């Protein structure tokens, strides 16, 4: 048993290391244009600058001779001008994700439980659900903006919408497929609806819902970043796309080094949140046979 998990760790780590080293070698070898494959050094520089939050030193003649391109600091410069830092952006996006989850999870679970519980509700609501979830959440962003103006709402609503839509199906199946037998037993024991839902339906559907939650976390991050890339002056999406007002967004050429930093940071944050969700799931489903 031990050899399997160590083998897994070793190979995984080796693969990761190999990836990083290979990238560093290839990028520094100057085989590709720096705009396309940013040298590892530039990535590191961008990372530090974004974390520390100070303006990069102005480009000098000697820098240009060394091959350090001036335009690559435009992106960073714009960001720093607005007071954007890597950790700040990550925190903001993370906050949006958490708010979206806090609102979307109960909504989705409630709807799914309702549809799974009552055949009647299922018949009426399921078609409506299928229609609504076919609409990609971010397509709504401009429409919401017309109603509610330029604020947090048009960024948060797509996230809540996406999270809720994701959780309906796991909750639905959890109640319908898993909880059925237990509900029969509980009802013969005299359980009334409130007790039934609290102590039988929800725990029985719990594992399915927790699985759905992990997926919803990934969706929440994706939607948050997307919304920020479209219409936000802060957050990771904004960092990646380059800051500035949305009209000029498509014009600003993104610095690949910054994009890399952003992607790696997002992957790390997403992984961390998933690991948390996974740990919570294990803890809460210890009773599963």
């Amino acid at each position, binding site marked *: 048993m031990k050899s399997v998990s160590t083998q897994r760790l070793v190979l995984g780590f080796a693969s990761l290391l190999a990836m990083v080293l290979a990238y560093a070698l290839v990028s520094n070898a100057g085989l590709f244009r720096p705009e396309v494959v940013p040298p590892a050094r530039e990535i590191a520089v961008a990372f530090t600058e974004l974390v520390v939050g100070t303006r990069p030193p102005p480009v000098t003649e000697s820098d240009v001779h060394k091959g350090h391109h001036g335009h690559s600091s435009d992106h960073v410069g714009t960001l720093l001008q607005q007071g954007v830092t890597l950790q700040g952006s990550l925190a903001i996006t993370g906050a949006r994700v958490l708010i979206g989850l806090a609102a979307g999870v109960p909504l989705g679970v409630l709807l799914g439980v309702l549809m799974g519980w009552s055949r009647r509700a299922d018949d009426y609501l399921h078609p409506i659900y299928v229609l609504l979830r076919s609409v990609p959440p971010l397509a709504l962003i401009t429409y919401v903006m017309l109603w509610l103006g330029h604020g947090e709402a048009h960024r948060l609503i797509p996230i809540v919408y996406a999270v809720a839509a994701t959780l309906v199906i796991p909750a639905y199946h959890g109640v319908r497929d898993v909880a059925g*037998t*237990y509900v*029969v*037993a*509980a*009802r*013969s*024991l*005299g*359980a*009334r609806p409130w*007790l039934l839902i609290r*102590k*039988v339906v929800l*725990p*029985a559907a*719990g594992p399915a819902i927790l699985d759905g939650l992990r997926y919803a976390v990934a969706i929440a991050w994706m939607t948050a970043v997307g919304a920020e890339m479209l219409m936000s002056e802060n957050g990771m999406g904004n960092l990646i796309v380059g800051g500035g007002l949305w009209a000029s967004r498509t014009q600003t050429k993104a610095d690949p080094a910054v994009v890399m930093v952003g992607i790696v940071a997002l992957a790390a944050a997403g992984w961390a949140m998933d690991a948390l969700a996974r740990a919570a799931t294990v803890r809460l489903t*210890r*009773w*599963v*046979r």
Partner: protein
Amino acid sequence: MTAGDPPRLRLQAVDVGYTYSGRTATQALETISLDVHDSEFLAVLGPVGCGKTTLLRIFAGFLRPTTGSVACDGSVVEGPGRERGYVLQEDAIFPWMTVRENVEFGLLARGVDAAARGATSREMIRLIGLSRFEEAYPKELSAGMSKMVEVVRVLATDPAILLLDEPFGALDAQTRARMQDELARLWERRRKTVLFVTHDAEEALYLADRIVVLSPRPGRVKADFRVDLPRPRSLEARFSPAFSALKRQIWEALG
């Protein structure tokens, strides 16, 4: 109530029929009329698919018969009720609760306070010899133990009528024999009205006062006879000539 009066009816099915709707409608039961008397241990015996689970579900109040009606203590059955304790064929022990919490559940539903619940559940668990597992989760129990917990879970609410659906079907022969003894012992202590569904003739003979044999689908009552073997029934009873004679009767009735 004088000695001459017939025991009162606890459950009554009159011309009950049930057809499952769906792409191909299947008629599970066809005009079944059945009377279950107070304190009677009645076994419903039949081959797989004869509709015995359907009948039990109807008595339990989870299915509404397509024809005929079912009554409990004189009033028409509209849904599940505390007076009819129901142990399903499937695994229905709540895996997210400990054994004790499972057994206490019916009492919790009734609003009994924690101390009283604890006392009753402890006693019930002791009865089946699982005191060691009081705080364990179902995943640590074997199939047989699990089922017995379900039985005492129902017994804890002290229902007048017990509906048991092939509770020992998934167990091996030895465990099954042991569980049958446990059940018989529990029944001896408080004579409840029991409606017990099984496909095992020996089990029916060992446990019941009366056996009703159902035909294959659609289920109809084929035979109905008393089992006058003395109680309490022991291992020897299984090998007595009276037992074998009855068994032959049953096999002939099953066709």
